[in-house]
């Protein structure tokens, strides 16, 4: 992956090397190395000890011991993941829930972003601020706010019953519907912001030209606006989908006992069952599932940056 070093115009000074080295070192130590450790522990055995796993290898014991310990590594935890259908059902249902939520978020978010981009220029900074503000507000609080709304004796049921639309309270909390609502609500700003950015840059004269040539507005939308806003749509969908797959707080607080999501399964495996090797294996597989969308997302971001820069 390394790009060739182009001959620098002037020799890099010590200071500029330090500038690179400090954040590089921090991220390598606290982001990259931890993944290697997760991978290592996913190959070891659970043990009744503190920490609760047998070390997979100990580098201080020398090369010979290292080679011996390699032979002791086992894929047992991964075999276990395939045998118990809880795990693959969790993975599958996480991906499905995240994909459906992403699609709903797009349906809800597109009109908002479109309305913002078409609003008078004087309104736009305020509207932008209004979209960003919930992003600054605690995730936990925003999920919690929905419990009071969705529960059986909650505000939504009270409203619907007082309007006479329903006679029995609807059970929404602790179902997958509540999880969808929670994900759409929490991740909406992530989708609206990149979408708004690409819609705002759209050249209005193209739409005027289409209109002058007799193109009806909805057709102009399909043929001009939507294709040109596609980079924003893609970026926004990635920003919703990827974190939603591993979401823990929303399925835990809004979902029911039969809501399977892998983030929750990992949490339970780690905190309740204290099975560190299996939860590491769950994390490794989750990462493998997400690697493809993450790389696609990064490539797209880089392309957009190069075009703008």
């Amino acid at each position, binding site marked *: 992956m390394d790009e060739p070093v182009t001959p620098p115009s002037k020799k890099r000074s010590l200071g500029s090397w330090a500038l690179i080295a400090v954040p590089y070192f921090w991220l390598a130590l606290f982001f990259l190395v931890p993944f290697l*450790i997760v991978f290592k522990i996913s190959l070891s055995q659970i043990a009744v000890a503190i920490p609760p796993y047998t070390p997979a290898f100990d580098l201080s014991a020398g090369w010979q011991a290292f080679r011996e310990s390699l032979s002791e590594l086992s894929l047992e935890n991964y075999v276990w993941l395939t045998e118990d259908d809880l795990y693959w059902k969790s993975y599958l249902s996480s991906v499905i829930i995240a994909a459906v939520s992403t699609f709903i978020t797009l349906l*809800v978010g597109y*009109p908002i972003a479109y309305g913002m981009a078409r*609003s008078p220029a004087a309104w736009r900074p305020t509207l932008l*601020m209004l979209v960003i503000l919930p992003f600054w507000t*605690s995730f936990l609080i925003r999920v919690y706010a929905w419990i009071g709304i969705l529960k059986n004796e909650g505000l939504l049921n009270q409203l619907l019953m007082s309007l006479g639309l329903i006679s029995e309270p609807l059970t929404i909390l602790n179902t997958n519907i509540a999880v969808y609502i929670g994900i759409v609500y929490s991740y909406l700003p992530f989708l609206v912001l990149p979408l708004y950015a690409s819609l705002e840059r759209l050249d209005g004269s193209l739409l005027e030209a289409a209109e002058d040539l007799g193109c009806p507005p909805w057709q102009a939308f399909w043929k001009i606006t939507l294709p040109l806003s596609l980079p924003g749509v893609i970026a926004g969908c990635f920003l919703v989908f990827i974190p939603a797959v591993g979401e823990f707080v929303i399925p835990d607080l809004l979902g029911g006992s039969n809501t399977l999501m892998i983030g929750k399964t990992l949490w339970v495996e780690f905190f309740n069952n204290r099975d560190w090797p299996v939860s590491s294996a769950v994390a490794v597989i989750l990462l493998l599932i997400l690697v493809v969308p993450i790389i696609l997302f990064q490539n797209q971001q880089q392309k957009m940056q190069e075009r703008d820069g």
Partner: protein
Amino acid sequence: MTRGPTWFNLTSLVLGFSFLYLPIVLLVIYSFNESRLVTVWGGFSTKWYAALLENDQLLDAAWVTLRVAFVSASVATVLGTMAALVLVRSGRFRGRSLFSGMIFAPLVMPEVILGLSLLLLFVAMDQARGFWTVMIAHTTFAMCYVAVVVQSRLVGFDKSVEEAAEDLGCPPVKTFFLITLPIILPGVIAGWMLAFTLSLDDLVIASFTTGPGATTLPMKIYSQVRLGVTPEINAVCTILVAFVTVGVIAASIVSKRQQVQRERDERAAFGAEG
């Protein structure tokens, strides 16, 4: 588009923003509810706020959270600004792809993975867990957000001012503090605030990396939420929301004023030249 907003656009904006804000508004309203039943209105009261002041556990957790957020946001701002400078200014170097990958990946990485992996690192390092481990964990993911915010500021930046300073013999570090930093300052401040609120909000990563004596406010709120909705939690949440809202609005007003001032200065400088 110079025409006024159409009915369709106006409706989607009103519905969209109601969806975004209604749950929080309801939460705030019901924090002033006299009744203990959260969803039945029993009259206006501030008693739940008074009750908070006597809840020592909650106050302790709030104090820990503020300390963690302050230290981690400050370290993350320094590291994140350095990382942004590297991304924008250092050109190509060996391992650049890995570097930008490590900046962007934590932005979308599920929190359970970040939390678990950092915990296992601290265990492998035989590090006692508590305030400092949460601080390091928060710094690590927050610096990536800071880097992205500052980077966007650096990209739209006139490099010629910096080059002029260097041509006149100003050493790079001095150039940074005298020229670059003042120009990117709004981005740096926004980055710090983002890092601060991210740390203030985080439940998952803190739960993995914390130890005895370092329970943060979100962890406290979470353990109470699992037992049900109570007006006290509504009151805590209202205070947090108010705190963040005032901070964000104040910061945006300050940065706007600075920008107007700078534009005026620039115009004055060009006017003097001509």
